[in-house]
């Protein structure tokens, strides 16, 4: 009675798994990757009747065959002996489809509890399921739940405990009649019994999988020195398929679905229910070939503009200042979320420094905390409101069912660049911040597409880069037309480069001529639930904090060190720091843009600073010009021509977004090589493009005069 109960939670995508998981556990206790994979593993704890239940979320899959890393992870965890039982979620609004996974798990293990999710939605759609009859058919406990209404949760937990404590459980695994295949299954079973092959697996299940030609199991057997068994099942399979002319796996999947259909016929009753006409009109518009893409883009852009406005004041500040209300614009900026967080942290830093000095702490400790740690935490937190808002907007779009439709309507566009419509999310998120954009590459099922997104999305100009663009453009271009043109053209160059990178990666590196195939389930459109949106938002945001937060803080400490230490120890003047030395070392490169002398190394140094955070680039230039001038004056003091300013700006937007994004690339690829190569690629393409612009511009100017 001491040990905790471990429950593996399995279910198809879209069955409401994350919602039920959240309500079961209240909070996610632990997020990590499954060993050796980039598949995410979530865990949560629940106490019930004095026992501790640990829920382990398996990836959402349609089956437990071995066609994807997710399916392998799910299946191998179920047989690992770690979970006491498997909780399989079945969508009660689509039982004919989602029961398939439950049946597959029941063929593998008898310790199963089935939760019929979305009971409320099924009820309003006129779908009724006879729970008792279903239990009888599947010989496993079935509980009807609604995560939104909170019904059935207590009963589900009771059932889980009962099964775990052995009070209630199926005696044996489920047997489906595979008709003409049965004699062969028995034949393989007896072979497996004789050799005592993989006793942790259900023998009949193992026999069926080997007949299907499951690669993963075959490899496992070969590793265990059971090559003869594999050879026997292989030749048996080939003989059967030759003599019957049919594929065994097709026969098995079809038989299983026929079995599911037969159960559904006896347990599911449908009565006509009124449908909501307004939703179907939205649905039709969203997937319309002509109106769909612009409407989808409009919804996403509106949501994201609102998010940006709340966070940094952009574009409200520009609107206000352009109509002559510059004071209002400044207020909007000052009281935007990131403005407030930044202000709070600079006050906190100063106060902490005072207190530490008074307490007699050594000066490097004071500096480390006040200038390294606190601003680091501050920069994580000043990102945070933006990320929370973006995720909230995304959760609304996702939960309402609008999201997948936008992905469908954008599919054709992204196909041109070797991507599927799902790529719209990382690209949209990237306009806010590249870190969550890289993490969002997970939405793709195809490994190649995922990698393409990871290496191309960092070119999408994020909000930090927008700040740099705005500062330069307003300093160097006076006419609003030129300002607008340069902003738009820079975004166009960056987005095109991102898309071209993706296409090139697919064609040249992966050698794939066709874009990824879209296979995407489309859930019905419905009013988003506040609860679900909140859970999703909080879950994503915490994920960001955990993953990126630590790294950003560490990197900001490293930057502090680079700027405060020189060969002679702590330096008073940044101009003697390691950072400045590094800046001087790379400053000759700026001669290529016709920038030399003092301004060259100042700019080079600012570029290094920009690696920590792009917005720091502007601040650095201001500090280096003596600090007592406005940003605009500081930028103008660099004495650049408009052409130099524009081409350097292009470079600043395109080269490595920030260390945090690099960290995210590493976390998602788990490959140091890919990370370094993509970093070099970004710097190289930034140089080539900006220099091309510079020299082409020079040429045009020369011809024109």
């Amino acid at each position, binding site marked *: 009675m001491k040990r905790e109960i471990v429950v593996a939670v399995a279910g198809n995508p879209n069955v409401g798994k994350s919602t039920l998981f959240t309500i079961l556990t209240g909070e996610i206790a632990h997020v990590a990757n499954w060993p050796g994979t980039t598949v995410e593993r979530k865990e949560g704890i629940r106490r019930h009747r004095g026992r501790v239940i640990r829920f382990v979320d398996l990836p959402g899959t349609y089956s437990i065959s071995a066609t994807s890393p997710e399916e392998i992870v799910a299946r191998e965890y179920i047989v690992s002996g770690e979970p006491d039982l498997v909780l399989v979620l079945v969508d009660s609004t689509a039982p004919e489809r989602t029961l398939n996974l439950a049946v597959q798990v029941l063929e593998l293990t008898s310790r199963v509890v089935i939760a019929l999710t979305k009971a409320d939605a099924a009820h309003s759609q006129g779908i009724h399921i006879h729970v008792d009859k279903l239990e009888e058919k599947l010989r496993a406990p079935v509980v009807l739940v609604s995560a939104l209404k909170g019904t059935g949760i207590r009963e589900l937990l009771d059932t889980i405990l009962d099964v775990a404590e052995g009070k209630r459980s199926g005696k044996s695994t489920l047997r489906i009649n595979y008709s003409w295949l049965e004699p062969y299954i028995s034949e393989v079973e007896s072979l497996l019994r004789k050799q005592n092959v993989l006793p942790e697996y259900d023998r009949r299940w193992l026999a069926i999988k080997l007949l299907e030609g499951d690669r993963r199991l075959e490899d496992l057997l070969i590793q265990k020195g059971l090559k003869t068994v594999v050879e026997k099942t292989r030749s048996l399979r080939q003989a059967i398929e030759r003599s019957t002319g049919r594929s065994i796996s*097709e026969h098995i999947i079809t038989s299983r679905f026929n079995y599911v259909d037969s159960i559904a016929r006896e347990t599911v009753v449908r009565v006509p229910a009124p449908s909501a006409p307004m939703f179907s009109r939205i649905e039709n518009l969203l997937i*319309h070939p002509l109106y769909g893409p612009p409407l989808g883009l409009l919804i996403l852009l509106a949501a994201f503009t609102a998010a940006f406005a709340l966070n940094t004041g952009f574009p409200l500040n520009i609107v206000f200042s352009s109509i002559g209300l510059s004071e209002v614009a400044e207020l909007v900026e000052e009281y935007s979320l990131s403005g407030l967080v930044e202000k709070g942290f600079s006050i906190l830093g100063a106060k902490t420094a005072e207190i530490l000095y008074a307490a007699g702490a050594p000066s490097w400790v004071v500096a480390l905390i006040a200038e390294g740690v606190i601003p680091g935490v501050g920069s994580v937190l000043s990102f945070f409101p933006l990320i929370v808002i973006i995720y909230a907007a995304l959760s609304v779009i996702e939960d309402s069912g609008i999201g997948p439709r936008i992905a469908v309507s954008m599919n054709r566009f992204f196909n041109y660049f070797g991507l599927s419509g799902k790529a719209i999310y990382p690209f949209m998120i990237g306009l806010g911040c590249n870190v969550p954009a890289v993490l969002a590459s997970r939405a793709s099922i195809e490994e190649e597409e995922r990698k393409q997104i990871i290496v191309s999305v960092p070119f999408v100009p994020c909000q930090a880069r927008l700040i740099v663009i705005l500062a330069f453009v307003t300093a160097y271009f006076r006419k609003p037309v030129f300002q607008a043109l340069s902003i738009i053209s820079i975004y166009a160059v960056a987005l095109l480069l991102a898309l071209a990178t993706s296409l090139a990666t697919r064609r040249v590196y992966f050698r794939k001529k066709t874009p990824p195939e879209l296979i995407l389930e489309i*859930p019905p459109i419905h009013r988003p639930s506040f609860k679900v949106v909140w859970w999703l938002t909080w879950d994503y945001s915490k994920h960001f904090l955990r993953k990126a937060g630590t790294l950003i803080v560490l990197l900001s400490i490293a930057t502090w060190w680079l700027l405060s230490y020189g060969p002679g120890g702590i330096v008073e003047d940044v101009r003697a720091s390691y950072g400045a030395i590094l800046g001087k070392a790379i400053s000759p490169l700026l001669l290529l843009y016709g920038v030399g002398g003092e301004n060259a190394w100042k700019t080079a140094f600012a570029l290094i600073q920009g690696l920590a955070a792009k917005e720091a680039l502007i601040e650095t230039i201001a500090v280096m010009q003596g600090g007592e001038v406005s940003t605009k004056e500081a930028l103008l003091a660099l004495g650049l021509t408009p052409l130099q300013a524009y081409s350097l700006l292009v470079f600043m937007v395109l080269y490595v977004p920030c260390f945090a994004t690099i960290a995210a690339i590493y976390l998602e690829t788990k490959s140091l090589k890919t990370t370094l190569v993509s970093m070099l690629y970004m710097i190289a393409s930034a140089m080539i493009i900006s220099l091309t612009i510079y020299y082409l511009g020079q040429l045009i100017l020369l011809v024109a005069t």
Partner: protein
Amino acid sequence: MIPLAYLPPGTRARIVGLTGGYGQTRRLMEMGFTPGTQVEVLSSGPGPLLVKVRGVVVALGRGVASKIIVEPMR
């Protein structure tokens, strides 16, 4: 018998078979596209098809949809 991709919107058909790679065929079947199953084309334009199968709407790229062979129903 024609590929699903060529069906006009509003038609129902019965799946006859799937061509294409092992992984994709399997994934499609596990999502409910098994031979003998009835499908309904909800929309079909220049982009992906929307197909209803086993009570669920699935978007299929035209490439995938041309690998599902169906028999149209009256």
